[in-house]
């Protein structure tokens, strides 16, 4: 209730429901004729994000990384998340959608072409511990279902840190890389749970480290959360986050 989007008054259309339990994420995304979000015109991401600044930014009190470069959603139609097997998402996440996808550090406002879509990178800071991709897409008047998001950020470590782990939760499936190496993959129809999947032991280099992630969703409410854990499982907070 703390993050209600202010909306236009809506004409509520009563829908007589006679089926069984069609209230989960397996609901086909195509049935949106009654979706009031189609009818509201005042959209914003302001309730969930602020523009990223160059000020020093550390993880939040639980170690979650809140400053990210987010690419507007790539159209990836899936009527159900049941297809997100390991092999499916590995292929989906290793497909090249735009040039230098696995190497570039994009800039805020930079545009890329994915098929017929022209998509923009946004440097943002999430107001919450998790990055609500659904609200990012919705607020920008982009499609919210049947989507694939890319996220990039830079972790600046004051010294080399060995045996750290990247801990991720995502809705739905996702895949994450640290400095170009695969770190962790989350397959299946997932809800975002903190520390859901954790990488093998990794090393954060002294200085810049690039995290790259991709999140795919069919009809779900996309989001993710990422933090690093030390050898004792405690969150790492003595790092800074930038988009450069």
């Amino acid at each position: 209730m703390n993050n209600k989007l202010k909306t236009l008054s809506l004409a509520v259309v009563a829908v007589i429901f006679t089926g069984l339990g069609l209230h989960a994420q397996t609901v086909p995304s195509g049935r949106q004729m009654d979706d009031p979000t189609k009818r509201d015109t005042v959209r914003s991401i302001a309730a969930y994000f602020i523009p990223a600044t160059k000020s020093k930014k550390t993880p939040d009190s639980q170690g979650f990384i809140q400053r990210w470069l987010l690419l507007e959603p790539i159209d990836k139609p899936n009527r159900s998340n049941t297809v997100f097997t390991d092999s499916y998402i590995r292929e989906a996440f290793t497909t090249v959608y735009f040039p230098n996808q696995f190497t570039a550090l994009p800039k805020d406002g930079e545009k890329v072409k994915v098929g017929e879509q022209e998509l923009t990178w946004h440097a943002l800071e999430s107001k919450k511990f998790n990055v609500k991709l659904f609200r990012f897409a919705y607020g920008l008047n982009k499609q919210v279902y049947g989507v694939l998001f890319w996220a990039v950020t830079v972790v600046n470590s004051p010294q080399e840190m060995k045996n750290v782990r990247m801990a991720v939760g995502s809705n739905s499936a996702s895949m994450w890389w640290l400095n170009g190496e695969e770190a962790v993959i989350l397959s299946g129809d997932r809800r975002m749970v903190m520390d859901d999947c954790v990488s093998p032991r990794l090393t954060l280099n002294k200085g810049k480290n690039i995290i790259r992630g991709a999140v795919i969703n069919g009809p779900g409410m996309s989001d993710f959360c990422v933090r690093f854990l030390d050898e004792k499982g405690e969150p790492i907070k003595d790092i800074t986050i930038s988009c450069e």
Partner: protein
Amino acid sequence: MKSRIKISGITALLSFILTGTVAAQIGKPFIHDPSTIMECEGKYYTFGTGGGGLISEDGWTWNGGAVRPGGGAAPDAMKIGDRYLVVYGATGGGLGGGHNGRILTMWNKTLDPQSPDFKYTEAILVAQSDGIEDNDAIDPGLLLDPTDGRLWCCYGTYFGFIRLIELDPKTGKRMEGNKAIDIAIDCEATDLEYRDGWYYLLGTHGTCCDGANSTYNIVVGRSRNVTGPYLDNMGRDMLTGGGKMVLAAGGRVMGPGHFGRVILEDGVEKMSCHFEADLDQSGRSTLGIRPLLWKNGWPVAGENIKEGTYEIESERRGYALELVVDFVRMAGGMRGFGRNANEPIKPVPSQELADVIDTWPTGNIGVRIGDYMTRPHQKWTITAAPDSSGYLGAPYYKIVIAGTERALAATADAEVITVPEFTGAPEQLWRIDQLTDGTYRIMPKVVPNSDKKLALISIGDSTPTLAEFDMSSDNSKWNFRAH
């Protein structure tokens, strides 16, 4: 220790059939998103999505027939005073693609559609979502706080937050000025419970509505305050996705969801849910009822006893229920000291029923409790009663000495014996409830010439009897051990 007695082909077939039904209910228990089970005038009721619901005379055999107007989804129900409050979600939940849901309440004096008093009041709107906000007003659950009488309702799905509102227990309306509180994410079908100073928020995680591929599972967090924060066993807030498992798929049933709690008496609790798919019932969504256990302050689904052959161990001392027959020694004795350690090793056969049964009397034989020696007079085969009778969540059971039809039975003087042949008489049928601490209560369906509700009790280390159940005493508790 292969001591299981071979069972006849008919028994095997029966066992196969019943194995599939022991986990879920029998009759036509097909439902999705069941409400908490209500007892009304000697019958059990649960309501589901789409209107209507199930009725059961005994809690084991369920069929359609419950009536709930308003359609919509995932109701809950609660008895407050002498009335029943039913709450449900209308639209929302992605129905028609939207998330503009509404939570409504209504009252009825009875749940029996045949009663002249059966009449629902007009539905009252208590919460709604606009389709855009981070909430979908659907899937309500009710809690009447036993500490102060306040009535709470949680609701929501994966579309944003699970929310908590307060209702007026006299009217079923939203308390004036009450503002909703976010208490969880990543849940559907939430329910609130209170026990021993803790408030518990139970939710369903995973994927719904995909038959045998549904990954639905029931999780829990707890809080000292009804408003949260609800933390799991790892200290994770359910607002960050936390949740400790209560029940997941198992055996031939998949995707449990929509928790409900029934407290029958001290130490005897049940939980209800639906299984998205019961593979023995065409993969249909089926009502499930399990014992509810509490382990270290956390709820966890128990198990109805599975058909099989067991030692019946008293919790009092650890001795085993056995026939009063002569102890028959096995061949050999202590090997003696100083023997050659290099002598060949060979197995010693277990004592079998055929080795001893001719030494047993052929009429009634008494029962006692003794130290378990894996002997035939200590092995009991337990199967569901052939008459399909039952109680809430389980069938009555037949308990016989393995390999025989010698059946455990209650006597008119409130003792236990075995009779040489199982006849199906009610004093030979046994109710077996897993208790909240994981042990079991064993009760005869009837005690002849008595209306007393008695249980199998250890009155001494070696002496069983029938007496009133006492959850605070290990005399009242038993374990079933498969060796």
